């Protein structure tokens, strides 16, 4: 603030008129605030909106659960064995992404790339599993989105989760490509870190979806 931008004081400031005629008071020193950076806050805010989005889909799923007059029902159509494997992939990928960002933060580039790649592979495995599962549902159980309420809510919920996994995989591929060009380092680890947060979130959502759809709802 430059001196001349300040207009002359027009205040008598009656309530707290200074009685002592000493020099103006000395302002206290400013201590820097320690919080997250803007990008991190931004990611958290975005994830908050995602929580609201998935909560809505889950509420819709639960509110129609068991209301169908025509089959197939979840217990008839859903097989646990496959989904346990895909779930394991996704859970493992949360570990690998953690190891990756950890490696990056401590400057171990090669390890970062390996763990990052592993995460991508696990994510793709999950998607492939889901693809197979959907094919079975459609061809063997004739479950489509227009078949019944279960189909309607199931494909919407699991589909939007799958879409998020897909977007996560794409984001991670971009980071990997950058890493391959040695453009990702400990100094600019932020993007990798935020992608990791997003990935953890997508995993967390899956745990809820898994519990709701395959455990409680079956």
């Amino acid at each position, binding site marked *: *603030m430059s001196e001349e*931008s*300040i*207009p002359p*004081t*027009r*205040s008598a*400031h009656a309530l*707290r*008129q*200074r009685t002592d005629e000493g020099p*103006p*008071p000395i*302002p*206290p020193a*400013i201590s*820097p*605030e320690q*919080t*997250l*950076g*803007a*990008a*991190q*806050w*931004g990611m*958290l*805010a*975005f994830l*908050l*909106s*995602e929580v*609201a*989005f998935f*909560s*809505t*889909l889950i*509420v*819709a799923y639960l*509110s*129609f659960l068991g*209301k*169908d*007059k025509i089959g197939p029902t979840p217990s008839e159509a859903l097989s646990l064995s496959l989904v346990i494997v895909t779930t394991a992939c996704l859970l493992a990928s949360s570990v690998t992404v953690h190891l990756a960002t950890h490696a990056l933060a401590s400057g171990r580039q090669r390890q970062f790339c390996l763990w990052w790649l592993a995460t991508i592979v696990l994510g793709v495995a999950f998607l492939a599993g889901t693809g197979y599962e959907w094919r079975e549902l459609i061809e063997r159980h004739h479950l489509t*989105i*227009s078949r*019944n*309420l279960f*189909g*309607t*809510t199931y494909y*919407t919920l699991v589909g939007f989760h799958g879409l998020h996994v897909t977007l996560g995989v794409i984001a991670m591929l971009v980071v990997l490509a950058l890493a391959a060009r040695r453009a990702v380092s400990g100094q600019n680890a932020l993007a990798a870190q935020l992608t990791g947060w997003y990935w953890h979130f997508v995993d967390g959502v899956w745990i809820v979806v898994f519990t709701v759809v395959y455990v409680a709802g079956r």
Partner: protein
Amino acid sequence: MAVAEQNLPLETENPPWTERLREWVTTVDHKQIGILYVVMSVVFLVIGGCEALLMRWQLLSPRNDFLPPDFFNQLFTMHGTTMVFFVGMPILIGIGNYLVPLMIGARDMAFPRLNALGFWATLFGGCLTYFSFATGGAPAVGWFAYAPLTERTFARGPATDFWALGLIVSGVGTISAAVNFVATILGMRAPGMTLRKMPFFVWTMLWTSVQMLLAVPPLTAALVMLLFDRQFEAHFFDTANGGSAILWQHLFWFFGHPEVYILILPVFGMVSEVIPVFSRKVLFGYEFMAAATMAIAFISMGVWAHHMFCIGMSRTLDLYFAAASLLVSIPTGIKFFNWLATMYGGRLRFDSPMLFAFGFLSMFLIGGLTGIMLAAAPFDFQLSDSYFVVGHFHWVLIGGTLFGTFAGVHYWYPKATGRRLSERLARWQFWLLYIGFILTFGPMHVSGMLGMPRRIFTYEPDRGWDLWNQLATLGAFVQAPSFAIFAYNLWSSLRRGELAGDDPWDAWTLEWTTTSPPPAYNFAELPTVRSRRPLWDAKHPDDPDWKYE
């Protein structure tokens, strides 16, 4: 004049219009994006207002056949949608965009390109929604689009799809803006500006953003479900095949109620900046005001079903939602009383911003109190979906949101353009709106209590509603010139307005320390902050605020 002409970048250089257009279209500067939002909103305000005028003309007399029923139904759907999604939200987001970085001493928003994306998504969403007119008619489902009227069985044709798609796209814009606000406010404040030292408007933008993050995605999800129903024959709201009409209502109002606070919280923030400056007093009870903002944001997430008292809920639920709705009046009251206390003992100057703030105070109170009547569940069994509700929500949306927003626009226009709005036109605008608004929406409370439902394209002559409708129509035509004057004032003052200088109102927050309009980088030197009124400290070095906070 010649001296001051120098610091007017808007006019000094005069590049060809193609160049200027390119600059505006590709801009990622928060101030330009803010202005784009505001301009877009004013354009949609005029469109939505003209739709309202057509409706009022149709309702002038009973059994009037000026408009066919379906067209009337399209008009209120588009009017409501426009006013909420393409006027109310974008104008507040735009003003927030312009001010938040300036007020917290930052050079831009946290994510400038995301910011631009947010604006263009909002505009594109608006265009998509209006494009439905070109496909043989706008949607005729009402702005809250109750299922199953929105299913393909009842709403054939693509209009409803465009409507849903338009709102999804503009919702993406809203979420981008909210993410940006949170990141900017929490991550980019000037050194020394702790949360407790933020200008009050920034507090309200923070909580508005949180509400947008929590409330808009459920709407997006519901709209996606609706589109799945319409396009892929899913059954979410398809009551003929087990879908649920009530689910839509819950999802919509889970969004819709917080939405109305999204439309008022930033306005609370704006008048909380205007009232102190024009009363020459510090905002009374800052901490309580901040706490009340937070309380409103939280409580309002749990009151949505007061829009659904008549769907046959249990008495217990009725009771809960009535109680929760009434609770909101407590923090709102806190705000109200703190504004009054700020004025009390001040030296009030009634320049146009304060005039509009006065309009806000005197009118929002009434809208809030009619809200209390609606929240009294059994009373709502009579009032719901009657013109009383239409009276209530215009009273809060115009008496609250619009008056407060006009206060803000009149207050910050000099900062954004370097020139003042014409005070004479502002007074015409104010009084025409004040009188016309009372005349339009006052009688609606009466016709509602006389049994007139909303959303009817015509009514029977023997019901005693004629007079009240005539008054309302008259009022609408009294207000209309007010909006025209406002638009004209915005435009003509760009050239002819009195030069403003950096700090025309002798104000206290950071945006007044830089030039008007501010340079692209906002501040030559990032400011350091020690109190809520850094400019007060600078103007009163002998007795700064930080000694008392």
